[in-house]
């Protein structure tokens, strides 16, 4: 490696450091992977971030009855709050199972925000099981399909291709 390019790299590095110092005091403390709690990491539609573990709709049904039915209804379609499965497939509903484009969102949201009065209290296996339960109730997967880091991102949601992505179409110009 010629000496000159090494110097050039150093100079570039120096320049970047100078710019950074001119703007901020550089007080950020290094953050290791182990220091990042689960709720600070968002699961992505391609499955990035999904933890180990698995669960089925049958396992989810038991947890659902005690942790979720109070607000979302016995069958998950009647509420009173935010029905999770549409009562009539094909009819317009904002239920997660029919309206959300990606199944990974269910896992992420249940893990960070549910149950409402004890969020972040569920084990990852329980979250997978509840995700499976909602998907099965919505007719998206079979009752026996286990959900895990490999199967969940492959679930094809009914609404996967029903998004008009405004940012991609026209940036911040309103609809």
């Amino acid at each position, binding site marked *: 490696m010629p000496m000159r390019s090494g110097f050039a790299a150093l100079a570039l590095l120096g320049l970047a450091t100078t*710019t950074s110092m001119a703007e901020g005091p550089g007080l950020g403390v290094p953050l290791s992977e182990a220091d990042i709690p689960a709720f600070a990491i968002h699961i992505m539609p391609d499955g990035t971030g999904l933890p180990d573990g698995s669960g089925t709709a049958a396992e989810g049904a038991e947890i659902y009855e005690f942790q979720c039915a109070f607000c979302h209804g016995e069958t998950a379609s009647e509420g009173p709050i935010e029905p999770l499965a549409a009562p009539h497939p094909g009819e317009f509903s904002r239920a997660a199972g029919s309206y959300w484009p990606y199944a990974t969102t269910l896992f992420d949201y249940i893990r960070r925000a549910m149950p409402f009065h004890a969020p972040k209290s569920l084990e990852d296996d329980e979250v997978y099981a509840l995700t499976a339960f909602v998907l099965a109730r919505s007719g998206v997967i079979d009752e026996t399909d286990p959900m895990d880091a490999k199967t969940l991102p492959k679930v094809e949601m009914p609404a996967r291709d029903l998004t008009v992505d405004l940012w991609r179409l026209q940036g911040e110009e309103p609809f």
Partner: protein
Amino acid sequence: MAKSRTIRDGGSAVAGGGLLSRRKLLKGAALGGTAAALSQGVIEAVHAEAEPPDWATLPGEEVRGYGLPAPQEADVKRTQFQIYEDLSPEFGFSGTPLQKLRGSITPNGLHFEVHHGGRPEIAPEQHRLMIHGLVERPLQFDLASLDRYPMVSRVHFIECAGNGFLNAVEPEPQDVGLDVLAGLVSNAEWTGVPLSILMEEAGVKTEGKWVIAIGADAAGLSRSIPMEKILADGMLALHQNGERIRPEQGYPMRTLLPGYEGNMNVKWVTSLQVASQPAFTRDESGAYSDPLPDGRAVRFSFAMGVKSVITHPSGTMTMNGPGLYEISGLAWSGGGAIARVEISADGGTSWADADLQQPVQSKALTRFTIPWRWDGSPTRLLSRATDSKGRTQPTRAAWKARYHPTNINHYNAIQAWDVTPEGKVANAYA
């Protein structure tokens, strides 16, 4: 009486229904005598009280550490909504009483709130901001460190995507006030650290095009924000109208994305995860998407549209007889500055430009006014704002035609007020 009215207005009409030109009106008032005589009458009435009032004859209260509004103003409050009542009362929102305020800045205690998992009581010394994901140097910051960073102050509105939900979906106009109809918008001077400085310190990798912001509240509220916006004018806001951000608005820190829907201005923010794609969080998948008639849904609709409301007079108020009034209201746009606000006092037959209170700031509430002589006949008042990019407000019918009938988000149609001969002002669909 009719004669003196003609003299006072002196040809200052600028549109039908009694809208007047302020400039010509002021000129006329300086020359004419009737307005001055009226003022004197009021002053004499006040002076008729011979004895000095109690508060002038005894020393007042002592100094205090934190000031409060006059006790007589106790009814100037946010209007609270807890739609799930006993099941989850912590999921709620409260609207700013726009019709009880003047100027353009919202007092901190009256800034609207929306909480998905209640208002957390965060110990600031235990709170940290993490920047991780597609960055060269994952970093964490505590509040004391962030306080040493260079800060900027900017006046901006924040508006909930669902502001105006009643008019968006109710078949008939509901007879309620602006706290309910449009109170999920507020305006403050926000001070904080430009997010570009923090991102530069962490070193965003070239594939880092999005930032997933996550709150430290029970809901762990999360939204995907384009890196372009973060670097353009995104702020880590620490102060609100000078003082530390209120708990309701995200104490000790929130993301501030000028002009973007309120939900993206993540309160109690603790994590900024740099990613190559949006995460399709719960909110951008569900509640904050905008369904269309064909079953699809608009997602990633970030900027709030141009909008205006007349605050004085407005719904639930009763006018105090015919005569001279000042129509006053607020206009804003998530896409720039307000360029023009037109007012109609005859149901849209004719329009006149209102005066804009200076300075007109981009992505901030702008106060507008226009003099109006109400002759006591029934009429309909309308306001129509246009922003610096030429966008203007649609009619309600035009707005409804774009979306699925259940959509409540991004409602920015023209607000109408009907005035009865008795002076009662009520919400109307134009």
